[in-house]
Structures are given as structure tokens and as C-alpha cells.
């Protein structure tokens, strides 16, 4: 029999304090509110005073409401029954399907022992040259998409999801617009991927605290599948909303803020989620792609900044394309040495020349005279933007590499590219 407590002594923000005994840290409680019941989680205990963050928000809570402690941390159901289902940020069904209570696992399980991980070595092909050639995506990678609001980040996320060869797709939406939620659902449905997808959906109009649970729920379910040998792709959109929810709670709890109001443990909080990405040495894998919107296109904002230090690179979406500067896949070296002998050469050379193109463009815009070299660069840059960079391009890696050589040969002499002689001899296109 669970004990019921009724003496709520403080309500501030979405955090309430109730007097209770024998409560475990991080345990879950159920609160009967006039409008229904809500879950809450213990976030501080001081003697008898237990602080709880209420997932449905504190609006309408009366100081006489009943609080029941469930004596366990937050749990989520796992297993094949979840496939094709949609849940909210507390793990309750949103799709009129039955509530699930089988194979419950604790969310926020302990970290993986590093020695049980393997070096990622499987490339995920996306058909996007800016990804495949220049910043290859690798299974078990954790990679954010840095973007300003209004960029087609959800489209990019959905496109990678349907083209990637994975067993299960889990989408965690945080503060998502309802339209975007429908967009994901429709796109996955169109490509027949809905039956291997699971949604945890927190939309912009839901209570803020529920947003905090979404990554944990999604990743706990993903981990369970990965342990059973499945290859799971987790999509999170948008992690900045998650960080803002953390900020809100920590300020309510009167914690000393560190940078622009964010809590001092923002890095650890984000890391403990992103680090769930894993390739187990005898089981499946989890790959995480997460959208991080950058307020004011500022990469030094605490959320993208901390994220960048945690993740294995980032895709930087700007002006509707993946920007070559600022985008990086740290794991690309694990796979791009095994694709084709010229992969790395094309990758390095084309980017270096593109950097020179940008400089030439700057000179041009300032009205300086263009040298012969500058004109070559300008020609090259335009070709690169049109044939390689555009997100409309959808070609396999090998085709993209051939295209790269063609563009180089159209614009430059071999020695102008700085490529080693042995590679030039092997790959430079013969004169027409």
C-alpha cells in the first residue's frame, strides 16, 4: 500500500514541495489534481521537505492535493509493441491505442562501459554529397544539425531517416510545432517507414517539464532495442527547447546560473543524453541526429557551444544548404578511407579550393580587379554550389566523386589543385 501525503507546503513555478518520509531520490510520484493526475519527479530532498517537478505543470494544483510516491524512478515500456505508436512526454499514448506497461525499464540507466563499445566503422549513406563525400555519417554517431529557425532542418532530418538503412526510427519531438509533427508522420508514412517508427511527442503547447523527459524516454527505448541487436536511429528535434526547459527548472530551484541563465551542469546534462549513442561490441547500435536551433545564428550560444563539445561533429545548415565550413563529421576518417582511394583527396582539395573561392568572392564584392586565378576560382565555386552543395542533389557517393574530378578538370590545371602526383596520374580525367 502506497502512502499518501497531502501537505504541499510550497508551489513555485512547476516545482512543488511536499512533506514526506522515506522517499528515494529521483523517484516518481503521482499527484491527483482537479483536472486529472500528473506524474512528478523528486529533484531534491531536505529532511522531510521533498521537491518535485510536476510534469503537467503546477497550474491548478491545490495545497490539499494528494501525492503518492511510487517508490521507483521514471520507467518506460519497451519492446515491439511500441512500433508504430505515438506517446507524449510522460509516456502516455497519444494515438488512442492501449497504454503499455510491459517490459518496463528505468530511464536514465547507467552509462555504458567504454571497453564494451567498438570503434564505429559502418558508413550510413544518405545520397547527399555534402554528407557522403565531405562529412560522412557513421553508425553510432551523435550529430546535431545546427540551424537558425526557418531552415529546412526537419526536412533534412526526415530525408536522412528514410534513406538510412536502419531497423528502427525513434523520433523525440521537443517543443515541436504541431505542423512539423504531422510532417514527420506523413513523410515516414509515405515511405512506408511508420511501422518501424516510434514517436515521443512534446509539442509547443504542452507543459514545459514534459519536454525534459522526451530524450530520456526515446533513448531508453532505443537502448533496449540496441541491446537486442537492432540498429536504431534516434531523431531529436529540438534540443535547444530541452535546454531551455532545464534552465527554467534550475532557476525555479534557485540554482546559481552559469552562462546566460543556463545551469552549470548543462554540459553534463546534454552529454548524458548524447552519450547514449553507441555501437555495442556484441549487440546493435544507436545513432543520434539532433536539431539544435541557434538563437540569432550564434554558434557561441551556450546550447550549440556545449553541444559541439559533446557531439562527434555537426552539420551546419545555413541558407538552405549544408555549409562546408563549420560542418564536420569527426568519425568520417573511420569510413572514408575504405570507400575509394580518391575520397579523401577530393574531400580535402575541393574544400580548400572552395575556401579560396569564398576569398575571391569577397575581393570581387569589394570591387577589386580579378586575376586569372580568381576567375578560375569563381567558375569553380559556382559549379560546386550548383552541382554538389545543393540539397536537391541526390546521388550515390561514387557518382559524386566522379563529378568532383570533372569539376576540378573543367576549372584547373592539375598542379593548381595541390594534389599529389600519384593521385593525379590515377584519377585526373583525360582531356576530351
Amino acid at each position, binding site marked *: 500500500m502506497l502512502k499518501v501525503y497531502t501537505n504541499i507546503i510550497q508551489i513555485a513555478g512547476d516545482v512543488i514541495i511536499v512533506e514526506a518520509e*522515506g*522517499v*528515494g*531520490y*529521483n523517484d516518481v510520484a503521482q499527484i491527483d489534481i482537479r483536472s486529472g493526475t500528473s506524474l512528478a519527479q523528486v529533484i*531534491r*530532498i*531536505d529532511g*522531510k521537505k521533498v521537491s518535485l517537478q510536476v510534469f503537467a505543470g503546477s497550474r491548478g494544483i491545490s495545497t490539499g492535493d494528494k501525492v503518492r510516491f511510487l517508490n521507483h*524512478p521514471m520507467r518506460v515500456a519497451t519492446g515491439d509493441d511500441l512500433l508504430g505508436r505515438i506517446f507524449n512526454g510522460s509516456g502516455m499514448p497519444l494515438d488512442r491505442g492501449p497504454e503499455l506497461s510491459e517490459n518496463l525499464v528505468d530511464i536514465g*540507466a*547507467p*552509462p*555504458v*562501459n*567504454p*571497453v*564494451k*563499445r*567498438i*570503434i*564505429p566503422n559502418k558508413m550510413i549513406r544518405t545520397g547527399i554529397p555534402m554528407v557522403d563525400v565531405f562529412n560522412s555519417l557513421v553508425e553510432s554517431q551523435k550529430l546535431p544539425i545546427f540551424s537558425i529557425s526557418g531552415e529546412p532542418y526537419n526536412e533534412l532530418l526526415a530525408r536522412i531517416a528514410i534513406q538510412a538503412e536502419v531497423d528502427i526510427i525513434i523520433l523525440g519531438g521537443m517543443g515541436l510545432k504541431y505542423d512539423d509533427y504531422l510532417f514527420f508522420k506523413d513523410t515516414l508514412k509515405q515511405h512506408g517507414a511508420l511501422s518501424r517508427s516510434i514517436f515521443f511527442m512534446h509539442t509547443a503547447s504542452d507543459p514545459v517539464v514534459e519536454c525534459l523527459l522526451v530524450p530520456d524516454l526515446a533513448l531508453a527505448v532505443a537502448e533496449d532495442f540496441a*541491446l537486442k541487436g537492432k540498429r536504431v536511429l534516434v531523431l531529436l528535434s529540438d534540443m535547444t527547447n530541452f535546454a531551455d526547459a532545464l534552465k527554467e527548472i534550475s532557476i525555479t530551484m534557485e540554482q*546559481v*546560473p*552559469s*552562462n546566460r541563465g543556463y545551469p*552549470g*551542469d548543462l*554540459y*553534463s546534462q546534454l*552529454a*548524458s543524453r548524447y*552519450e547514449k549513442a*553507441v555501437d555495442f561490441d556484441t549487440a546493435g547500435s544507436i545513432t543520434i541526429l539532433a536539431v539544435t536551433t541557434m538563437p540569432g545564428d550564434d*554558434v*557561441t550560444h*551556450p546550447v550549440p557551444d*556545449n553541444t*559541439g*563539445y*559533446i557531439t*562527434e561533429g*555537426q552539420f551546419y545548415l545555413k541558407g538552405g544548404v549544408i555549409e562546408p*565550413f*563549420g560542418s564536420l563529421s*569527426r568519425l568520417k576518417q573511420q569510413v572514408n*578511407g575504405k570507400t575509394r582511394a580518391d575520397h579523401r583527396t577530393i574531400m*580535402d582539395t575541393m574544400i580548400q579550393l572552395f*575556401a579560396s573561392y569564398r576569398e575571391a568572392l*569577397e575581393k570581387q564584392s569589394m570591387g*577589386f*580587379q580579378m*586575376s586569372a*586565378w580568381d576567375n578560375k576560382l569563381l567558375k569553380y565555386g559556382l559549379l560546386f554550389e550548383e552541382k554538389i552543395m545543393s540539397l536537391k542533389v541526390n546521388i550515390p557517393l561514387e557518382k559524386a566523386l566522379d563529378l568532383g574530378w570533372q569539376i576540378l578538370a573543367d576549372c584547373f590545371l592539375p*598542379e593548381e589543385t*595541390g*594534389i*599529389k*602526383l600519384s593521385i593525379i596520374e590515377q584519377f585526373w580525367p583525360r582531356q576530351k
Partner: protein
Amino acid sequence: MNKRIGHIAKINGNMVTVKLDDFVIQNEVAYILHGQQRLKAEVIRVRADLAEMQVYESTTGLKIGEQVEFSNELLSVELGPGLLGQIFDGLQNPLPALAKQCGFFLKRGVYLEALVNTEWEFTPLVEAGAQVLAGSKLGVVPEKIFKHYIMAPFGLKGVLEVVEISGRAKRKISEKIAVLKDQSGKLHDVFLKQSWPVKVPIQAYAEKLKPSEPLVTKMRLIDSLFPVSRGGTYCIPGPFGAGKTVLQQLTSRHAQVDIVIIAACGERAGEVVETLKTFPEIIDLRTNKPLIDRTVIICNTSSMPVAARESSVYTAVTLAEYYRQMGLNVLLLADSTSRWAQAMREMSGRLEEIPGEEAFPAYLESRIASFYERAGLVKLHDGTFGSVTIGGTVSPAGGNFEEPVTQATLKVVGAFHGLSRQRSDARRYPAIDPLISWSKYHGFIDEAKENSAHAALRRSNEIAQMMKVIGEEGTSLKDYIAYLKGEFFDSVYLQQNAFDEVDEATSEERQIYIFNFIHKILFSEFKLEDKENARHFFQKLGQLFRTWNSSPWEGVEFRRVEEKITTLLEEKRKG
């Protein structure tokens, strides 16, 4: 003596406040008894009858009133044969053994012996009746390729007399091998292993000296322009994605030292995995043994408990000091010290201390200083030398070097290798910015030549800046050539291809040869009629140099390319 105990009164994240029944020692280790589990914690503040402790594990499920047992000991590590090749977490738990016992996940409250109790072939070096000091070598066991000396416990005071010493025999790690008598007549047992509190430096040596010998890292940019000395300190601050970790990995492979200790502190697990899976397979050219045989990895990745992250850098530096005591040169690579500083910040926030800049605690600077001060070149009691070199990366928020951790670090290190986003965006690796970096140490390149090359580089950059304003056409041919020379020096000497077998590591000999070769080019005049011609000439030269850089030292290919370069230079050289 009865065990001192207390009871939990307050829980806030990984900080637990305990009501005491008895006295308590600051920084003492205590265990929280939670059901069957014993969770390790450290006392970090005492107020009246309340002790505030940081818990090295997740605090989920802990309850008010649960018992806490105090251990009477400071947080310590075990020092003895068997450390090399190991992978520990921040509390010196061996991770492979944990994986065997617990599987995929790090179960909380499981602590294993750091050193396996195996037998070692012990040979005594002193006889009964000999007079020794703390840290003196009493005997030796072979560990991998090293002579692992068994030393008199570092904490003993004054002259010690050897009362008993084991003969040549196989001894287990916890077996007594000697008895020492101190001046007050007290007897001390000596084992193959000893334990040492991590936050206290080991000072059992004759004197600390000024670092003078260069530590060769085989990175041209570092060795030739911003050298590091054995026993010195350096830091690598840089924004994310600028290549800090790749730089550290390359250094750990190629640096000319005996032992490398890698402290992966609050960073990505994937990077540690790469090190620990590849090191057993890479053969160290100097020793002909796998790299892992001379490496110890301390890994407390970002998702592992924060408090253990704070202790991991201390664990690492203590192990480094231990091997230094045997007369070895040790390199400690800490990646990243910012995560360590953040762990301090998190704790300070929970303690509700008055925050300093960016909410870092006021003692940040002194903690960073005392960490780097544990590096050094020392003369041991027997006249041999040992050194600990510390290289720490810093991950400044927003890539802004003005932030507190970078600034506090710059005050205490001897060399600064600042990475810049600009260089890494342009794929100029290593992305150490030669215009902002500095070093107080002396390298193996002739100083006057180094300075003039550095000046040429700065001049080239000035012209590049100027050209942005006045355009290429407004720049004189002379200036344009100076600009091209600097770019050439940067691209073929300072930049190094980490994915090219030959180019990734350049020996001291080769660096001196190539540097002098390029230095001559930088200060020669060439017959170049116009800018187009000049640009083309340096592009061609650059291409040849890149081929040269990836040809093995003094091989046939090396000579062939050198000849080509010389021919090209002679064609255009003036006078």
C-alpha cells in the same frame, strides 16, 4: 576502533549532506550504505554537525536516514606493478575487469582492486642494515619493457634503516617484501604496492630542476616553433572541432617519452574507445612493443559521474609522478581540463558558494595552478632524473580565450598552443595558430633561424590582411612574393597530414634538415616576372614538397624529389 558513522539528511543531485555522530576528516572517503550497495563519496565541507559530501555515483533512490560509514582515509590510488596497459575510471576501477563482471553498463557501487594480485619476480637492490630515504629504490620487478622499482613508501620521514628485505623470489602484490625502521624506532612494512592520496603531490626526490631538454613530439609546428620541454607544461585551448583531441592522440603516439598517461576527462567515450582499441595494435617503433605497453588510460567520459571526473585528473597525475620516481620520462595528456573545471563548478553550485566569473568557484585559479605545478623535472635521491610533462587541452566556451579556465591556465603553463577556428575551417592542420601561440622553452631548431622564419610568417600575414583592403593589384610584387613565401612555409612545413603514414610524424633529424632547406628558400630571391608567375612557381614548389613530405626519410623517392626541387629552385634563383 569502532567505525564512525552518520546519516543522510539532505540530497541534492550528487551532493549529499550527512548528519555526523562523531568527528570527521576533511576530504575523507565515506561509503553510503544503500541496500546491498556501498556508494563511494568524499567529504568536501563540514558545517557544525553536518558534512557535505560529493558522491562518486548516481544518487538515484537514496533516502533520508540511510547510513554512511567513514573510512578514515583520503581518496587514494594503488601504486605498484601492473598499472601499464590498464584502463581505469577516475577512481582507479579497472574497466575491462568491470565489463567482465557487470557487462555492458557501469553498475554503481562496484569497486574492484586496481592491481591484480599476481606474482612478480622481485630482485632486491639493498641489503639489510642499509640506510634509505622515502622513495629510495629497494628492489625491482620487470613490468613490460621497464624496470619497475619498488620504492620505500613516499610518506615516510627521515633516514630509514632496512631491517628486513626479501631475497630474489616471486612475490605477490600484497606480500611483504621489506621492513623499514624510522628514526623513532617505529617499524614499517613494505609491499610491492603502496597507496597514495591523489590530491597530494609525491615529493620524495632530491630536488626539482628547470626543464631544459626538448620533448620531441614529431609535430613540426610544435617542435620547430613552439617547443615543449621534458618536465614542462603546455596547454591547447581551442573551439570545438579545431582538432584538440586528434592533436593529443598524435602526441600520445609519437612523443619521445617512456610512458604516456592519458586522462580522458569528461570527453567523448568514442575517442577513448579509439585509443583503447587501436593502441594494442600499433607497434611503437622505439620499443618494438605495442603502444599500450607504455600507456595508462584514465577515462571518465562525459556521461560518467561528475565527481569522479574531478578526481580523474588527480588520479592520472599521481600515476605519472609514481613512474617519474623510477627515473622515467612521463607525459600526461589531460583532455579536457575545462570539463574538470566544470565539475568543480557544478559542485560549487550545489554547495551554494559565492560564484566567481561565469559561476566558476573563486579557487579555480589556485586549483589549476597546483595541478600544473605537479609537472617537473626532478633529480632523484640516487642521482638519476625523472620528469612529468603535462599537456592539457582547454575547451573554452564559444572558443573565446578570455574565459576564466583558459586565462587561469595561461598564467601557469610554459607553452601555449592556441587552436583557431579559422585555420581548421581552412583545413590547415594542425590548427595551432602560429600568430597567437608562444613557448618559453628552447627547441632543437637554431633560435635565430626560428625567429626569422616566424617573422616571415607574420609579415606574410600582414600583407594578406593588407591585400584584403587594397587588393592584389595594389600590392607590390615584392610584397606579393613575401606573402607567397609565408603561405608556402605554412602549407608545406607547419601543416602536417595526420593521415599520411610518413607525414604524420617527422623526426628531429628530418625536421632540422627540412627546416634549414625551407629557411634558405624563404630568404632567397627568385627571378619571377609577375604575380601570376610567382603564384605558379610557389604552387609547383608546394606540390613537390607535399610529395617530398610523404616520402620516407632518406629513401630513394626522397632523394629523387629533392633533386627535382633543387632543379626548380636553381632555374629561378637569382644570382
